[in-house]
């Protein structure tokens, strides 16, 4: 499968480990992710105008690139746009739906973009997990060479993969897609009652304390449920849950740190793709001691 792929800004900087592990894992599964040329910000940080139509110009521009890739023969009749970051996924899928439902808005945006070719409204924004589900988790399991054994994983979804319902990739009340994936990788699944709770998102800039409390709840609930690590597909969730553990520990002395994985890192690990593809050094809480203890990584590596 050769599919247009949208990386997003974080994946080129702070979330390199999400991208590298995803590309390698997808390639193992025969998915060729072709980065769309001339992509711009997914649109999530744009907030200049008081009406919100302007917010959708950037995402729609990325959708136009997918049309161009088809027209230029870079991909063959593939109008799905693959994303990894939950935030990019949510923003761009939201815009795609918005303009599909509101032709007047689309006209306005097309008119405004002027020199760009018109967006025709037929690109579908998808998340890698959806593609995996479509391939069948059994099939994913066949690629596993390094089963995750008794590693106890609490999948965390946060908001952007689930809400609103029209955008979400799974049942917003009872998502299972993560559990299904990690089970196929051989991990033991622990249910975290806080798996859908918001991590605090951009409050991390203005109200760090709020985020520290939320992340503390999510992580300590996972710990109580018996999890050894949690997962995410969102660089912002990762920052709040992983990098903020330093501040959490300062505020809550009894807090035990816990590794936070991108889902793709666990795929790369289970597929036996090597540490350069897992990029655990990009994680704030180093997961390697845990993985070595579980014999999932070689000693001394």
């Amino acid at each position, binding site marked *: 499968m050769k599919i247009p792929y949208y990386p997003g*800004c974080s994946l*080129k*900087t702070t979330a390199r480990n999400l991208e590298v592990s995803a590309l390698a894992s997808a390639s193992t599964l025969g998915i060729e992710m072709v980065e769309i040329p*001339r*992509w*711009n*910000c997914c*649109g999530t*940080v*744009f907030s*200049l*105008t008081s009406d919100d139509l*302007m*917010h959708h*110009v*950037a995402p729609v*521009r990325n959708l136009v690139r997918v049309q161009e890739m088809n027209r230029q023969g870079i991909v063959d009749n593939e109008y799905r746009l693959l994303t990894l970051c939950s935030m990019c996924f949510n923003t761009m899928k939201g815009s795609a739906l918005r303009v599909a439902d509101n032709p007047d808005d689309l006209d306005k945006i097309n008119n*405004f*973009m*002027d*020199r*760009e070719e018109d967006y025709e409204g037929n690109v579908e924004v998808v998340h890698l997990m959806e593609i995996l589900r479509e391939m069948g988790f059994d099939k994913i399991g066949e690629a596993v060479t390094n089963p995750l054994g008794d590693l106890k994983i609490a999948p965390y979804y946060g908001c952007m993969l689930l809400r609103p319902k029209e955008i979400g990739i799974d049942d917003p009340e009872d998502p299972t897609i993560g559990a299904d994936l990690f089970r196929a990788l051989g991990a033991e699944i622990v249910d975290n009652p806080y798996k859908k709770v918001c991590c605090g998102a951009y409050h991390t800039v203005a109200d760090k304390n709020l985020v520290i409390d939320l992340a503390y709840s999510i992580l300590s609930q996972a710990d109580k449920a018996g999890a050894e690590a949690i997962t995410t597909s969102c660089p912002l969730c990762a920052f709040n849950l992983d990098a903020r553990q330093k501040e959490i520990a300062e505020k809550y002395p009894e807090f035990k740190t816990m590794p936070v994985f991108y889902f793709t890192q666990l795929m790369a690990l289970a597929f036996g793709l090597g540490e350069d593809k897992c990029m655990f050094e990009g994680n704030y809480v180093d997961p390697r001691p845990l993985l070595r203890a579980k014999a999932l990584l070689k000693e001394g590596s």
Partner: protein
Amino acid sequence: MNEEKSIMDIIADANKAVTTGIDSADIEHWVNIYIMGRGYKVPAGLTIMQAMEYAGYKFITAAGCRAGFCGACATVYRKEGSYQLKTAMACQTRVEDGMYLVQIPFAPAQEAFYDISKESYNAAMLLKHYPEVARCVACNTCTKACPQDLEVMDYIQAALRGDFEAVAELSFDCIMCGLCAIRCPAEITQFNVAQLARRMYGRYGMKEPEHITKRLAEMEKGNYDDDFKKLLAADIEELKKRYADRKREAD
């Protein structure tokens, strides 16, 4: 010798329009233009700058290199019957019938202050100095405004994610005229952001050639002092001989 003198006269004659201003006597084709709203009839085929001069304007500002490098003659225009606001370098653009012209010789623009030798080569530094980059809404107006046809929005997006190399490559042909910044709804000074990114890439992203370091060390040691002593002591005939005897390195 007379013939040689006349060669110079022929050359001077053929270039008169370019070197001394245009005489209207032998103009056949004309166009109408508007300079800040006032209409003028000017010879067809001139650049905007030449046309304005023909019309009687002597540039004090808004003219610099007259060859497309300095960005002083940034011009905004609209054509009769079109809503589009276009841009051009006056010295590099042919005048067209129905152009409404205005010059923008100066762009008030934010410039950050930094010491390039003390900056660290990381993705966040561009945003530290130019936080307004994050205000980009990808409206692409900057790209449309660029008289060099650069993908300005693309390099601002690259700046947003800290990709110095992409900013440097995409902005390399920038003449810093400022039209992008003047048109930007997010009030970003694209050309200054690009300047900083290029310098960071030039200093930290590109390699330090070893042959330069080596040559500087040799100079320090005085390796060429003897050569120069000999050259400076040589008389002209000796120099001429040495010059004629130079071996040209292979192509």
